[in-house]
Structures are given as structure tokens and as C-alpha cells.
């Protein structure tokens, strides 16, 4: 296991590269979901405002 983590001496380069890439993947999921939730909220508010003032 420690041999695997050592990556033949390249651990200091291999693991940060993987960490950055998977952080980007996770951020993309989070950003997209947050953006959709925010736009849904805003669209609901617009609809509500319209039905109150005909």
C-alpha cells in the first residue's frame, strides 16, 4: 500500500494532479446544481409576482 502511495517517487506530482482534477469535477457538479436551484427559485418568484398582480 505504501508502495502504491509512493508512486515510484512521483507522489508529490501524481496525487496533487489527481486531487486538482477531481476537485474540478466535484466543483462542476456543485456549481451546476446550485445554479439550477437559484434559477428555479427566481423563476418561481417571478411566477408568484405575476399571479398576485394581474
Amino acid at each position, binding site marked *: 500500500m505504501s508502495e*502504491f502511495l509512493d*508512486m*515510484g*517517487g*512521483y507522489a508529490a*506530482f*501524481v496525487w*496533487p*494532479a*489527481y486531487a*486538482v*482534477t*477531481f476537485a*474540478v*469535477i466535484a*466543483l*462542476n*457538479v456543485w*456549481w*451546476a*446544481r446550485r*445554479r*439550477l436551484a*437559484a*434559477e*428555479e427559485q*427566481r*423563476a*418561481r418568484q*417571478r*411566477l*408568484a409576482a*405575476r399571479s398576485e398582480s394581474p
Partner: protein
Amino acid sequence: MSFTWFHRLGSPPYVYALAARLTPWFAWPAGLLIAAALYGGLVLAPPDYQQGDGFRIIYVHAPSAWMSLMVYTTMALAAAVGLIWRIKVAHAVAASCAPIGASFTVAALVTGSLWGQPMWGTYWQWDPRLTSELVLLFLYLGYMGLRAGIEDLQRADRASAVLAVVGVVNVPIIHYSVTWWNSLHQAPSVMRLAKPTLATSMLVPLLLMLLGFTLFFAAVLLVRLRAEILARERASSWLREALPA
């Protein structure tokens, strides 16, 4: 031949519903492929005879770089369709692409620099491939900045679409930079006309990762597309049904 499918793809309610339905069909295969590729790339593939285990950075670097170019091309195509046929949904696709592409361009640059240090002895070099990839990041950021700076969505769509279309000249420059100029960067080993130059045990995880990332892009794009469609719809009646309170 009927073109009704094409017309329906210009209809916001249809695309909104379709995007919601399709998302899991891209997200789950993407997750499985990326997990399989991780196991193949980190565990099953043998170390490289020159680069040892350092070559394993390829499994995150090459797919990130592929995303940076493929997402930009998608964005420019969608922007062109939006400009030419004045299709709102196409502009919404283009706007959805930018943050995804920008983030993977950052990943490509960072992972490349982490690969460059042990193999070339430097994190950064003003080399044709590296510089043109950095220009790509600035194109994405410029596109997003331009959109953010224009209040009116329709005007933002049209202005940013022009930038996206003009900037697409950078895509072939990046791809061919390593053959046109002397570059530290190696020539393509997969994205080439002839057979890939990687051994099968190293190549298969890379292909799985490329496919996984591509499906991941589709899934995130579909979620963002729904948000962009909502932002472009004022108080259309279909919204009332699509958004149960």
C-alpha cells in the same frame, strides 16, 4: 425526411424537459467509466519504462485537455447556431459550456505543470502548446466576463457568441502547436490519424477516462442548460407546470 426533431430542439419547454430526463443517463455511465478508468490507470497499467509511475498523470491531464478543447468547440458551434438562426436554446447551450470548459482548462494547465516539473524540469515554459492553452483559458474568462458585464440577456448572448466564434481559431492552433512549432510538449499519442502509440494496458484506461469525462460534460451541461433556459423565460405558462411550487 422530417425535420420536426430539429424544430423541437429550438423549443425551450421541450428541451427543458428533455434535459431533465436525459441527465441521469449521462451522469451514471460517466461515474462508472471514470471509476473503472481510475482503477485501470492507477493500479492495472504498468509503470512507464522511462517515466515510471509519473506517467499516470496522463489519465487526468489528457482528458482535462480534451475537455478544454471539446467544450470550447461545442460552445462556439452552439454560439454560431444561436447567431445565425436566432435560437435562444442554442445561446443557452453556449452560455452553459463556458464555466465547465474554463474549469477543465485550469485542470489541464495545473496537471500539465505538475507533469512538467519532474519530466522537463520546469513547471512552466512559454512554449507554443502551453501558451496557446493559457490563451484558451483567457478566452473562456473573457467570454464569461463579457456576459457578466451585459445586463440584457439577449445582447449578452449575441455579443458573447461573436467572441466565442472568433476565438475558435485557437482550437486548431492548440492541437497542432506541437507539430507546427518546436515544443517541449510531446506530439499526440491518441488524437492522431494513425494508430495510438500507447500500449493497450495503458491506452484502455485513457480511452475510458476520455469517454467518462465527455459523458460527465454532457450531464453537467444538461443541468446548466435547464438553469439557462429558466433565466431566459419570463413568465411563460409552461413554467407553471414545469415548476410545481
